């Protein structure tokens, strides 16, 4: 059984109401999703909470999942939307509190992460960062990335190419 077939079987059972089957899906995809969100946020604690929220949302809306399509892009798409919601509310909070420098860089990188790469990643636009992380970090195809981010295929390819160029420039300056 391929991973995709296994996903589909567990997702079918979860759609029928099996929490055990959903637990299996959480077990299978937790590492990938946590890694994706950790690199997206640049902060491990936020990422863990977002990953949990993503799985809870996926369980509560499992009926919306189309078993004819792969599970992973659907799940990561939820994670991406949760990240954007969280970021928006976080920026609103900062603005309300009068902190003018409510920027991307406000997500403090975790000291445990590779700092050069983490810093360079934070300099990318969120869509570029997400597209790069999915294509290179999570081994998604461009089509799966487009599905997860709800973007046209051409836009995803362009985000990946531009993100890669920016990263190369940033890392080249740091690492030689």
């Amino acid at each position, binding site marked *: 059984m391929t991973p995709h077939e296994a996903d589909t079987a567990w997702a079918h059972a979860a759609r029928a109401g099996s929490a055990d089957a959903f637990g299996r899906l959480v*077990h299978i995809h937790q*590492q990938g999703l946590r*890694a994706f969100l950790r690199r997206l946020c640049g902060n491990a604690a936020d990422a*863990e909470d977002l990953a949990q929220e993503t799985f809870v949302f996926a369980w509560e809306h499992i009926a919306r999942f189309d078993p004819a399509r792969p599970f992973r892009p659907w799940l990561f798409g939820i994670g991406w939307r949760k990240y954007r919601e969280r970021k928006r509310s976080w920026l609103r909070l900062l603005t309300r509190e009068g902190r003018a420098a409510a920027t991307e860089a406000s997500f403090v990188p975790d000291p445990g992460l590779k700092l050069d790469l983490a810093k360079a990643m934070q300099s990318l636009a969120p869509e570029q960062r997400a597209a790069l*992380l999915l294509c*290179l970090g999570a081994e998604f195809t461009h089509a799966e990335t487009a599905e997860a981010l709800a973007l046209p295929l051409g836009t995803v390819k362009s985000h990946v190419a531009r993100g890669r160029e920016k*990263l190369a420039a940033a890392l080249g300056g740091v690492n030689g």
Partner: protein
Amino acid sequence: MDDRMDDRLKAQWAADVPTSDPRFVLSVMARIEQRRFRRELATTVGLALGAIILLGLAAPSVELVWHASIAPYVSNISIFLTLMAATMALPLLFPARD
């Protein structure tokens, strides 16, 4: 150039994947249960309040019908048994998910 960059990024990210954590799975399942419990509690409290209000509003009419049509023909014990059976049947009619 692109391939070298891709390999470099993949290698860095592959070396920095969080470990599979059973506690994470437990936390997710616990959060799901907490949400479900809160939702069911809110539904139950809402339904109970609705029923109390409806019953309060309809009490005078119910009392009239009760005295005129039901009380003379049905014993208290059979009413009690009917209510108990309905209470026991409710969870079977609306089972909790999983």
